[in-house]
């Protein structure tokens, strides 16, 4: 293996850059790329001849755009539907050129293409001038955070290469770009069809003293990787592969920003759990002591703490991300259904997946007019400033501080329907859940029989007993044995089994993140009613985290909740009332739980004996 690693320097270290071409429909984006491919000799041998021959067979004039429009619908309609990637090289670096469609109907494809890019060429037709999507795309580049932009004023041949037309468009468009915060590196007059000013300067426009498009591309600077920023590694997964006696528990993810070394103290957010990095793990590399922005990697920890995918690994003594359930954001909506208030969506932010609702629309903006208006919902292709609220805390940064951890998407009915950038956290005294519980309790018509009266009559107080732990640890067996024992002792008890498969969606009709949350909420509400009625309610749940357990307790409040953990205890301190070993014998388990009930004064020993 050593010999292999020493071979590494053989790879020629060339830089690669993704560049997107955007602009209004028919302004010649595909032609620019097609021409660049031909003039730089980047096409596979015979490709140009093949496309020309196909045009001839179909009695159509050849266009450079046909080199890009690969789909049959695109060839038939003469428009680009989806982003295509073309590969070409300059002296300086390798490029992946992403051709984005200019038609409003395919805006989500344009976004997909542009979101992958580090730089953009914005194409405007000199003959038609600035159109709606010239502006919208300019705005979207700013939204997506693309800083490297050059503007190409195309089809100069159609306006007889007149400088004053170029200058007028340049002036107007630069003003617009300034308003959205973009400063292009170049504005270049070109004719893609004729090849003017693409690879070299053209004699057709002697008045243009700048550089051609290819040089403008080479002049783009790659953003420095974000090593200098605070360390952020969103956890993708926690692996424990047991084959061939591999006993590592590896926290895997990609470092978004910063750098960290083995031995450093870390904190996981939003849970706040702390540990120290024991080792950096990798396969088939030289041993590593540190990791840095851009790497997909893995670490082991010095202490056994249980964390979940979605947490953000941060350095302990460093500026930490915000942890909140509420934030202000700009959202770009792509969904067929409008974005509405009081509907539960799934939010994906870094590797966190949480249910969220839109709680306020500050203003909706037309991205091509830059005008703001008040609306009760956000329609497709609109951008809105909103307040979003999540059902459990999330860790994030404001996009202005750390872009990588300040962005999210919204999933509606299986589809990514919106993208957003976080402007700032909103700190509220009351979470959404607290407000909901307050409202519930306020509107609750209380029974005339008080909990004390009930307890006297029943010979016991009420409680919710949650038996939890990992899958296949004997939770349900213990829960049922407990129910039987309490019943035989003459207690009013009930085993509620609905929640056993919380994570496996029975109807399969909904999102699993939303489904799990909804189940827990329902369980909490049901528990609240049944414990209010004086029952000792027993339930077993697989794999829930501290926050979800707190939520359950909260919903059952003011009635008592007792937590029994079977097997590995993954909860934080103070969350669990009784710990049982995995697959504990039913009789012993029941005896221990009954003992807990006596200690917790649910069962009064006087009655019990």
């Amino acid at each position, binding site marked *: 293996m050593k010999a292999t690693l020493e071979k590494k320097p053989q790879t020629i270290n060339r830089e690669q850059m993704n560049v997107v071409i955007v602009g209004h429909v028919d302004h010649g984006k595909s032609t620019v790329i097609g021409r660049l491919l031909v003039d730089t000799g980047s096409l596979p041998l015979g490709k140009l001849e093949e496309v020309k021959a196909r045009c001839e067979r179909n009695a159509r004039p050849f266009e450079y755009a046909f080199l890009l429009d690969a789909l049959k619908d695109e060839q038939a309609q003469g428009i680009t539907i989806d982003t295509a990637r073309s590969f070409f090289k300059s002296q300086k670096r390798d490029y992946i050129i992403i051709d984005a469609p200019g038609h409003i109907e395919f805006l989500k494809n344009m976004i997909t293409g542009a979101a992958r890019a580090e730089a953009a060429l914005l194409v405007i037709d000199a003959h038609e001038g600035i159109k709606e999507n010239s502006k919208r795309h300019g705005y979207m580049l700013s939204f997506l955070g693309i800083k490297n932009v050059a503007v190409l004023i195309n089809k100069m041949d159609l306006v007889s290469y007149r400088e004053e037309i170029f200058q007028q468009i340049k002036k107007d468009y630069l003003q617009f770009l300034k308003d959205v915060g973009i400063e292009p590196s170049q504005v270049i007059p070109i004719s893609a069809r004729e090849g003017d000013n693409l690879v070299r300067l053209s004699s057709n426009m002697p008045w243009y003293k700048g550089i051609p498009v290819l040089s403008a591309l080479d002049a783009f600077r790659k953003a420095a990787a974000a090593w200098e920023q605070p360390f952020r590694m969103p956890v993708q997964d926690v692996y424990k592969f047991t084959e061939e006696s591999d006993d590592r528990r590896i926290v895997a993810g*990609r470092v978004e920003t910063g750098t960290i070394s083995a031995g450093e103290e870390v904190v996981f957010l939003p849970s706040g759990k702390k540990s120290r990095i024991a080792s950096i793990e990798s*396969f088939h590399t030289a041993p590593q002591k540190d990791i840095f922005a851009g790497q997909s990697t893995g670490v082991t920890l010095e202490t056994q703490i249980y964390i979940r*995918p979605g947490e953000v690994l941060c350095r302990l003594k460093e500026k930490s991300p915000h942890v909140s359930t509420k934030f202000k954001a700009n959202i770009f909506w792509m969904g067929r259904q409008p974005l509405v208030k009081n509907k539960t969506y799934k939010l994906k932010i870094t590797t966190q997946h949480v249910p969220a609702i839109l709680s306020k629309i500050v203003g909706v903006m037309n991205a091509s007019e830059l005008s703001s208006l008040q609306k009760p919902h956000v329609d497709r292709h609109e951008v809105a400033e909103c307040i979003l609220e999540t059902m459990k805390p999330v860790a994030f940064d404001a996009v202005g501080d750390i872009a990588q951890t300040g962005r999210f998407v919204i999933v509606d009915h299986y589809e990514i329907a919106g993208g957003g950038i976080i402007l700032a956290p909103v700190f509220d005294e009351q979470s959404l859940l607290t407000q909901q519980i307050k409202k519930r309790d306020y509107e609750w018509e209380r029974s005339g029989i008080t909990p004390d009266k009930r307890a006297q009559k029943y010979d016991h107080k009420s409680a919710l007993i949650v038996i939890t732990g990992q899958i296949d640890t004997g939770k349900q067996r213990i829960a049922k044995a407990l129910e039987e024992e309490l019943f035989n002792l003459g207690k009013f008890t009930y085993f509620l089994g609905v929640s056993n498969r919380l994570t496996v969606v029975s109807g399969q009709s909904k999102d699993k993140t939303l489904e799990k949350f909804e189940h827990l909420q329902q369980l909490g509400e049901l528990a609240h009613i049944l414990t209010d009625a004086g029952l000792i309610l027993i339930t077993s749940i697989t794999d829930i985290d501290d926050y979800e357990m707190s939520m359950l307790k909260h919903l059952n409040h003011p009635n008592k909740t007792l937590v029994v953990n079977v097997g590995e205890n993954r909860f934080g301190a103070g969350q669990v009332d009784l710990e049982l070993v995995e697959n504990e014998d039913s009789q012993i388990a029941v005896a221990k739980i009954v003992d807990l009930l006596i200690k917790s004064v649910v069962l009064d020993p006087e009655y019990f004996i």
Partner: protein
Amino acid sequence: MNKAMDQLDYLEAQSVFILREAYREFKSLVMLWSIGKDSTVLLWLAKKAFFGHVPFPLVHIDTSFKIPEMIQYRDELAKKWKLNMIVGQNKKALEEKRTFPAGALDRIACCKALKTDALKNTLSGAWPRYRLNHTTGNYELDSNTEPYTGVIVGARADEEGSRSKERYFSPRDRNSDWDVGDQPPELWNQFKTDFAPGTHLRIHPLLDWTELNIWEYIERENIPVTRLYFDQGNGKRYRSLGCYPCTFPVDSTAKDVHDIVEELRAGKFKNIAERSGRAQDKEDGGGLETLRREGYM
């Protein structure tokens, strides 16, 4: 600290990220292994992503017309790396001799029957799956007939037209059909990982890699590939692997990985498309779109 990442490092990090997303989101996940260089790199990347392990089955569709050395290489590596290897086949078409080599079908129809149909039905569990038993060394009927909902594929955007328009996570409907006109958005490394019952997703971790990147990476990592890619002394080698009746070797004297890298970087193949030795592409108007819409890899 050396914090420089070169192009291959970036490509590797992105592919690993995608593989881990797939593994996290899809409980019924599978990787297609065609035995070729791309999917073998993909297999290697899985070992990178999962720290030496490959935590999902690999599916190979055996048309029975594969070059024999491919099958031999497949089984050797599967045993050496203890892979969970599954093989599917269109037995009926082969028994009834409804194939191109038997003269019953044209190339496209044969591809559809032996590859696309076999793949669809192996993925859905409708047709038998044969799993490698590492104790006996034989392929045995697999009792698991659950449909796979996440399918990892080694397609690259630079291969041909329709692949240049793919997403990293690309939905397929109940019939494995691809709606190219209406693909999901992908931004900031957030992919479509939610899907309606009955549908599945194709996952493409190698989309941004070029043929040259693949060979550079094979060289850098010393990944084992079948020797069919190398000139064995007769001045010919395979540049792309498939079924022998439809895949032709190219003239080349590249006898190891390094020679191939040089040949692609500066030599005779610099500007010649990789799949130029694949006959079925030409019959599909050069884009493979028809085949791929219907579920071809």
